[in-house]
């Protein structure tokens, strides 16, 4: 499954790129599993995803919880808790 993955704020800084197209194994079914799988892709990813509790995610620009199914998502984003306003 090919997915566009976007990173923001310090997740982006740690990963080193703002976005990338990634071929994700079919065994990865949820957002939480995707984060765990990404963490195995190298030191920078391990660092970005070292504390899953502080990572937020969106599927196709809507907030989701870690147990959300990837389904037919086309864009997944990972980022720290928001600090706007």
């Amino acid at each position, binding site marked *: 499954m090919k997915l566009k993955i976007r990173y*923001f*704020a310090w997740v982006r800084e740690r990963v080193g790129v703002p976005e990338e197209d990634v071929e994700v194994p079919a065994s990865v079914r949820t957002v939480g599993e995707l984060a765990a799988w990404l963490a195995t892709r190298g030191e920078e990813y391990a660092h970005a995803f070292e504390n899953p509790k502080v990572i937020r995610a969106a599927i196709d620009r809507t907030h989701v919880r870690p147990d959300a199914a990837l389904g037919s998502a086309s864009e997944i984003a990972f*980022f720290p808790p928001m600090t706007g306003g």
Partner: protein
Amino acid sequence: MTIPVTVRIQREPFDAAAEAKMLTRGRTDVGAVVTFTGICRGSEGSEPIAALTLEHYPGMAEAEIERHVAEATSRWPLLGVTVIHRYGRIAPGEDIVLAVTASSHREAAFAAAEFLMDFLKTRAPFWKQVEAAGAKSWVEAKAADDTAAERWNAPGRDAAE
């Protein structure tokens, strides 16, 4: 009823007064306008800061704010809503965010403006980076902001209260 709703994410400064005027010009049903302006402070705690840089998730930021504006208009009898959030580098004293709500009566205008700000703080995909003493660091989310947003989920927190 369709009411005027404006949501903008922009790098440029905004004119809070002009935005508020747009919600009332040429009509006489508005009795109350609440304008919230969030401003970049010159210090975080006791540390002076040089600037903030706001990163956002284009597309999602607009969509997320529009969702909360729609929720606000369903909860309270609003006659107009404007939300503008800036991104990019913002110096102390400059405006960051604007929320304007118009209603016949003050209760709805106040409640909706607070509601929108609580959700902007915790749900709108923006991230603040602080520039201070030559170093940059990401602002940490505050538990108090989560608590403020959660109170709107309590039973009975709506137009009827």
